[in-house]
């Protein structure tokens, strides 16, 4: 069964300019899919559109058969689609504990609050040590952990990860992805991952799509994509 | 350049008004048109700052009042100075005052600026009201020219001001105004001194508003604090361009006209003192909800849309 299905999606910030130019793809049950492409290809725009931050100009998005385009962001979160955004993601003026607690909006999440909290602290012990401090005092990598932790607190049924590596040192990124891999294995949910470092993304996912100019130009299994010259070319730009 | 069109239509409008004046013997309507023209001049001055720079001023009555009092005060002190000269001097005085006051005011932007200009209005009004040397609340009577001279004078100035503003906003200086409004950061990066640019819009606008004030003194033959420095004056100077279409010369022109007419209509419909604000407020809310940029740009957009839809249908 298709978990997420995107059909001929068009989105843009300006009335005249489309960033996504009729994009279609789908995600199957318990699958981890990577979306790669150069800056400005529209990856983050896609994420924002799925989460309801941006209204699509045309096209459809289905989640488990239910049409979700046009729904408000919090309604989409209530369905279980949770995003870890590229920027922000945490509230620097709240403590870490508050940050995590405020993320239990869904009924299911409220019931599993204690279990989820343990899982987060277990996966990211650094957060436990600082739980009373303001999130603004965290380092970049810890903030990303908190951001992921917030997503987990929501008891997600589908996870969208937008450029986790942005602005982080390679070592931190590596650690982060190792932890994520453990986590997703534990939670057993479909993941859509956007990443500018192609190799990491394709390593993490089973299947991938390549985007340029708001369109999908290539798709295939991660291994196959990694081998193709085309991916490298497209990613590099010309 | 389509400035020619503006000049030609201006001249035609002036001739029409003169004909009208001859035929109807300067009745109520001729009077009313002159009254509207005063607010058109003041509104164009406001629009230079509010529309082309994007800083909303709630205290333009200050400059209006300075213009009016520059005409009134010498008369009050029985000095024999040519009134027309005083009108021009009034515009100059308003400009100078704006130059001085721009120093504190333009250091802030957005709504502290708005509150600051409102405060400026309160300060100046209070000072005039309590100072006997400025004739306090009594006001000053001015033995002015006949209607047959002042009305065409006001209309002439109004037309000249509209054409002047239209010309100005297409000069380098006017382009600089728009640049500062559109993207301040980018404007700085092409070498625009933001403070100077804002100050020049402020000063030129204040001069135009001061001019309107001076003409108002000639028009009414009477100046007093509540008519010249009152909140009401500020409000109607502001509302015209804002409702009509902020940052567009024609929009401000239409807006001032509509607002003043509506105000008069409302006064005759709702006779309770102060009740006419109901219609003014409602108009403001309706315009903002329907077209955020004001009536004129809204209509232009609508016409474009209809045209496009029509052409599409034609094409099919």
């Amino acid at each position, binding site marked *: 069964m298709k978990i997420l299905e995107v059909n001929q999606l068009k989105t843009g910030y300006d009335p005249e300019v489309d960033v996504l130019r009729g994009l279609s793809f789908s995600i199957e049950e318990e699958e981890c899919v990577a979306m790669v492409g150069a800056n400005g290809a529209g990856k983050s725009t896609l994420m924002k559109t799925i989460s309801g931050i941006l209204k699509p100009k045309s096209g459809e998005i289905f989640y488990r058969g239910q049409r979700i385009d046009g729904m408000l962001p919090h309604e989409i979160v209530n369905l279980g689609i949770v995003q870890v955004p590229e920027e922000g993601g945490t509230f620097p003026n*709240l403590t870490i504990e508050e940050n995590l607690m405020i993320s239990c909006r869904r009924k299911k999440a409220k019931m599993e609050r204690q279990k989820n909290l343990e899982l987060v602290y277990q996966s990211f012990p650094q957060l436990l040590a600082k739980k009373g401090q303001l999130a603004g005092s965290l380092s970049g990598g810890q903030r990303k952990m908190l951001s992921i932790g917030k997503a987990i607190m*929501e008891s997600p049924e589908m996870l969208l990860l937008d450029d986790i590596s942005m602005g982080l040192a390679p070592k931190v990124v590596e650690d982060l992805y190792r932890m994520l891999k453990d986590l997703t294995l534990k939670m057993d949910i479909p993941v859509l991952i956007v990443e500018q470092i192609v190799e990491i993304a394709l390593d993490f996912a089973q299947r991938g799509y390549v985007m340029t100019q708001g369109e999908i130009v290539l798709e295939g299994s991660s291994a196959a994509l990694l081998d193709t010259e085309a991916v490298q070319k497209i990613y590099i730009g010309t | 350049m389509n400035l020619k069109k503006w000049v030609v239509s201006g001249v035609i409008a002036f001739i029409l008004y003169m004909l009208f004046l001859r035929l109807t013997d300067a009745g109520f309507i001729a009077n009313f048109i002159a009254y509207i023209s005063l607010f058109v001049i003041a509104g164009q001055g406001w629009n230079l700052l509010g529309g082309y720079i994007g800083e909303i001023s709630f205290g333009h009555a200050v400059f209006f009042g300075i213009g009016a009092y520059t005409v009134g005060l010498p008369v009050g002190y029985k000095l024999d100075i040519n009134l027309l000269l005083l009108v021009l001097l009034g515009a100059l005085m308003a400009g100078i005052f704006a130059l001085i006051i721009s120093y504190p005011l333009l250091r802030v932007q957005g709504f502290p600026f708005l509150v600051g200009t409102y405060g400026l209005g309160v*300060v100046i009004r209070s000072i005039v009201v309590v100072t006997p040397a400025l004739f306090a609340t009594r006001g000053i009577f001015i033995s002015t020219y006949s209607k047959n001279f002042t009305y065409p004078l006001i209309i002439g100035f109004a037309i000249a001001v509209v054409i002047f503003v239209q010309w100005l906003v297409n000069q380098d200086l006017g382009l600089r105004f728009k640049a500062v409004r559109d993207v301040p950061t980018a404007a700085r990066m092409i070498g625009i001194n933001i403070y100077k640019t804002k100050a020049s819009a402020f000063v030129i606008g204040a001069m135009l508003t001061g001019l309107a004030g001076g003409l108002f003194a000639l028009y009414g033959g009477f100046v007093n604090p509540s008519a010249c420095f009152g909140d009401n004056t500020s409000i109607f100077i502001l509302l015209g361009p804002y409702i009509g279409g902020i940052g567009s010369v024609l929009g401000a022109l239409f807006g001032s006209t509509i607002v003043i007419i509506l105000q008069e209509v409302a006064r005759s419909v709702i006779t309770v003192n102060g009740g006419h604000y109901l219609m003014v407020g409602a108009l*403001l809310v309706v315009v903002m909800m329907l077209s955020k940029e004001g009536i004129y740009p809204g209509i232009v957009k609508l016409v474009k849309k209809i045209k496009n839809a029509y052409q599409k249908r034609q094409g099919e």
Partner: protein
Amino acid sequence: MEYTGLIQTILGGVGVGSVYALLGLAFALVFGKLKICSYMHGDLAILAAYLGYFIFTSIGLDPFLSLIVLIPIFFFIGYYIQVIFMKPFMSMEIWQGRYQAQIMVTWGLGMCIMAIEFIIWSGTYRMISVPYRNATLNFSNLTVPVVHLLSLGALLLIYLVLSLVLQKTDLGISFRACSVDRITAMLTGINYQKICAISFGISSAIAVVAGTFYALTHQITPAVGLELTFKGWVAVIIGGMGSLGGVILAGLLVGLVESLTSFFWIPALKEAVLFVGLLLLLIFRPGGLFKAK
């Protein structure tokens, strides 16, 4: 004698200032945190004052008792003003777009409210002549009006309750979350628009309290609304754009400046002195006197 007069003036100033502080608090709540700009709270306050007056004169209900009805009513009025009139502008860029549009819309609404008051109650000055209006407490040779003490108490109470709600409750935490990062808040599953509407409702409810106290210390006329709005905003600017504590101090300061001017100089110049002070502040400390953290 002169000395007690001065103390008396200061107390009076603080008492009047608490009304401005309440209005400033109402503005700071929605402006400082959620970037919603309103120019109608002064008119809302006066409307509440008139309603209190109306209830008092028609059925003799004490204005404090009528607050029990008025506060929820105004909460809903505020809630729906945000939903109907302010929401369309929430996605625009801050100044130029959102603030300007919101200022104009709320100002237009405020104008309508004022006009309706003019039509119903006319422009004559009214006052709510409750028996305790002129009651005072005496400490040696100082006389303190009871109403001033009450308004100061109400101010502190509202501030404490607000801070408590902001610190402890889910609503408060969501509110703080929305105030720093609205996109992240949405992605966290917080209904941003609802939080905005609730906050606007709360701030309208605070305006009701301000209006009631204003009516108990002053005579009311519809035109005062805009003036009150501006004084509330002056408190916000002096207070440093949105720190709640700063706004309260600034509001009290505004009242103090006014009453001291009346005491030492000409009462007609009290507002002029206030705004000259504001202009000086803009020169030397554009960020406000009590800067937000």
